[in-house]
């Protein structure tokens, strides 16, 4: 019940932040209305990165404590992280088309970094689907989550350098994107959207975690069912053999 209330609060907050960003805040002088995409885009990108951090920390915790609840948290964070990261990339492309003229801008280090982040997250989720045993799956997932999280800063640096060691970044810097006629309102719109998305993020995390626990019960049930079926078959076999003798 409490979770449901949180969900409704999140929904209301997103609607409120969207109305604020679309109606109250004026359009950007240079980018026009396209700049409004930045509010959900930046918020989801930040939360996506946060999610993968949570996955890695929960993975370390799992290897240390061997508690499957930590693995469920890691799983939930990875799935929510993939969702938010994909949304951030989609928003970035929608923004890039009118502002840069192309959907995909190789010059922008954040875009390339985020794309790799999404690939790492999807790989993590696929890995989980291919392991049946809960403990084994948790161990493998934890290792992949940790190595991926260590790789992210290296990816980020390498992509920034790749554009040219001598150039300074022009795109992708939030302080430059929010360089407007009414700075206060822009910052409030971004922060409001970030707060709303964070509530939704918390709601999705809780729901996904609950779902993971239900999934265990089903898995456990299936395993017990298979064991008892095998036992029944063995007992029946013994009876048949006895009577035939």
């Amino acid at each position, binding site marked *: 019940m409490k979770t449901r209330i949180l969900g409704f609060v999140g929904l209301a907050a997103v609607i409120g932040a969207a109305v604020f960003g679309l109606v109250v805040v004026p359009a950007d002088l240079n980018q026009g209305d396209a700049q409004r995409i930045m509010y959900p885009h930046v918020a989801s990108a930040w939360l996506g990165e946060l999610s993968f951090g949570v996955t890695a920390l929960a993975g370390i915790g799992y290897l240390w404590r061997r508690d499957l609840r930590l693995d469920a948290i890691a799983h939930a964070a990875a799935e929510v992280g993939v969702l938010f990261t994909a949304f951030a990339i989609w928003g970035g492309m929608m923004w890039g088309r009118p502002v840069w003229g192309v959907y995909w801008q190789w010059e922008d280090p954040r875009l390339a970094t985020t794309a790799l982040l999404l690939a790492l997250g999807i790989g993590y989720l696929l890995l989980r689907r291919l*392991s049946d045993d809960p403990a084994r799956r948790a161990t*493998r997932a934890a*290792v*992949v989550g*940790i190595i991926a999280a*260590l*790789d992210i800063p*290296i990816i980020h640096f*390498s992509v920034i*350098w790749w554009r040219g060691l001598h150039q300074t970044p022009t795109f992708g810097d939030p302080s430059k994107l929010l360089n407007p006629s009414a700075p206060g309102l822009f910052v409030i719109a971004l922060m409001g959207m970030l707060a709303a998305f964070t509530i939704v993020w918390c709601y999705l995390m809780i729901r996904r975690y609950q779902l993971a626990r239900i999934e265990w019960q089903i898995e456990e049930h299936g395993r017990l069912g298979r064991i008892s079926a095998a036992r029944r078959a063995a007992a029946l076999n013994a009876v048949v053999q006895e009577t035939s003798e």
Partner: protein
Amino acid sequence: MSVLRRGAATALAIARKDALSELRGRQASGSTLFFAALVLLLFGFALGPDSRRLTEAAPGLLWLAIVFGGLLTVARLHQLEVEDGAMEQLALYPVDRRAIYAGKALAGAVAMLALGAVLLPVVAILYAIPIGSAWLPLITTVALGAVGFAAVGTAYAGLTVRMRAREVMLPLLMLPIVAPLLLAAVKATTVALNGDPFGELGAWLQLLAAFDIVMLVAGAGTYGFLLED
């Protein structure tokens, strides 16, 4: 100190075992080299007969061939263990798991280095690149790249070797991880071939070295958990 020495001895013994079985078996390593060289030939077809374009793209193509060949190399190093049921034996040895990781990673790095040493002259011939004048930075780049790829590959091959669909899972998990390695190695190779006019080479080699160190530490720290599962 003696702990370190014992670990190093274990690692060397494991690497030596892998190298020996590779040299005596031979079929697999030969096919991997041939496969990587074939990839380089096919890149030539894909990019057309314009030799100037091939020369420009050569560093990237070289490293893609090394990555593709490397995926097969690191997968095979663990495949051999599992096929003979040796993985369990390896896990039961009363030695430090980090030493086992170091041994497998060393064997992988040597195999990758051999791959690079063969592919460099192939690239030089096929794409008309003068590698003679820049041999020292090129070898350094290949060596750092080989260590980094083996560091990630050993951990990920150990992770996927007993999985369903491992043939697709290993590249799927590894390729995004080695993206910065690919990027830095291609840049370092390009810069080295151009004679490093802006003095960037050091920065890219440092990035490669940083990647190597981070991944070696991460691999050594997690490999033990993978052996147990």
